[in-house]
């Protein structure tokens, strides 16, 4: 059986600069996988490569279907929700409009309305802020909005780029609990890039450590968490 998400031999380039060097990774359906590594190691680039937002060679497949070479919009339509670094919130639009944008590729009008209500039940703060400009939300609220927006796609796979960035520790805790729920209850597979390795390793089943655009190490999250060598050399805690 082939993996749910499978990337093989990815080379990615920012202009002339090569950021990924033959990177390969795979993840199983319904799991949380985390990408760890220092700044500039290529974590964000890997996510961008999966969504074809950067010049990339190599093959990527989702559910055995090849997605590499397809346009970003098409990959999104296939059920890949990518919350980029900085959350990608449409700050000048309302919370409600942000949620609707998340469902842009769907055409089931009723289903969309239902899902918006579901998001409001799950994130009550968003209901309160419903018609408020998204830019006026706090960082934590914006991150909740970003997750809710991604869920509006009814994704198979969610790509999260440093969701804990700039958030207070308590909010980060809450966020990761929610991500766990999303994974368990909605059956969404999650590939998450994190600086906060400790936390990410707690919710993930599998981890990849990236260094200089290559996979330096991979394995079960628990093992990586306990490997002192890895911790000191790559994760810095």
């Amino acid at each position, binding site marked *: 059986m082939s993996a749910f998400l499978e990337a093989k031999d990815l080379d990615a380039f920012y202009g002339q600069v090569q950021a990924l060097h033959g990177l390969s990774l795979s993840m199983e359906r319904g799991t949380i996988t985390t990408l760890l590594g220092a700044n500039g190691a290529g974590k964000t680039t890997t996510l961008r490569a999966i*969504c074809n*937002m950067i010049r990339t060679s190599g093959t990527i497949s989702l559910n055995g279907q090849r997605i590499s070479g397809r346009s*970003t*919009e098409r990959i*999104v*339509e296939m059920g890949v*929700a*990518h*919350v*980029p670094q900085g959350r*990608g*919130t*449409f*700050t*000048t*639009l309302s919370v409600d*409009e942000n949620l*609707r*944008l*998340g469902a*842009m*590729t769907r055409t089931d009008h009723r289903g969309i309305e239902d899902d918006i209500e579901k998001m409001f039940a799950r994130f009550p703060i968003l209901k309160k802020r419903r018609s408020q*400009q998204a*830019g*006026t*939300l*706090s*960082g934590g609220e914006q991150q909740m909005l970003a997750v809710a*927006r991604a869920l509006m*796609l009814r994704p198979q796979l969610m790509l999260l780029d440093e969701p804990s960035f*700039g958030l207070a520790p308590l909010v980060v805790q809450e966020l990761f609990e929610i991500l766990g729920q999303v994974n368990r209850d909605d059956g969404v597979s999650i590939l998450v890039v994190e600086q906060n390795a400790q936390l990410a390793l707690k919710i993930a089943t599998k981890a990849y450590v990236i260094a200089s655009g290559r996979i330096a190490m991979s394995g079960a999250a628990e093992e990586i968490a306990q490997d002192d060598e890895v911790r000191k050399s790559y994760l810095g805690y």
Partner: protein
Amino acid sequence: MELLIGQTLSGLANGAIYACIALALVMIYKTIDHLNIAQGEMAMISTFFAWQLMEWGVPYWPAFFLTIFVAFCGGVAIDRVLFRPLAKAPVLTHLAGFVALFMILNSVAGLVWDFTIKPFPYPFGTSPFLGSSLISTHQAAMIGISMVLLFLLYLFFQFTRIGLAMRAAATLPESARLVGIRTGRMVSLGWGMASAIGAVAGMLIAPVVFLEPNMMAGILLYGFAAAVLGGLSSPAGAVAGGLLVGVFENLVGTFVPGVGHEIKLPLALALIIAVLALKPNGLFGRKITQRV
């Protein structure tokens, strides 16, 4: 008093046209971050197209709507052929593109239809509006048609999925692509709509300024003034700015001694400079509130 009301109303009539041009400018500015100085020439060519249709015997209204459609397609074509390849090019390249478009459209119009002025028909004639001496039927039509058009656009942007997608693509193209919006199409749509709005403005103002290749030069300047006054990023501001500029221009031209017809245009330029110096975001170009 009568004079004041009359002049205000006819100011609103001109202002409605400036509002349309300003809105077209703002739409393109918001989608590609550049000011389309060829907007007036695009409107002029569309108006010539309408005139040609009528010369061939097409009645006014079919020609009017056919022109809007063709202008829309023309706008899309300009995006695809000229500006999409320039999408990542620096500002000066864009400027050169706009200047080229301006010159090409202007010269082609001159070549095909020559530079002599031509009369353009009024859709409803010029009799006093509802028997009132304050405003003519055509001025009322200029206000009425523009306002209906602007209202429809408001509904489109505020309440339809494509409208929302266009707003999203204009503010954050990368995020828009990540929710599956085909941003390239949204830019083309923006060009098409801006061109169509310009066509309406051109056809409404042509009976007043007469049809010739340079007919939009002044109108475009007023449109710029309106867009700058309203704040380049605000569609509602562009409309309000257009109406204000129209009324301002007319009242100053009438009541301030020494400001005749010749000085009105420099007034528009003075207004641009004043706004940029005193309130660079314009009246309505609000600063976006944001917490990080």
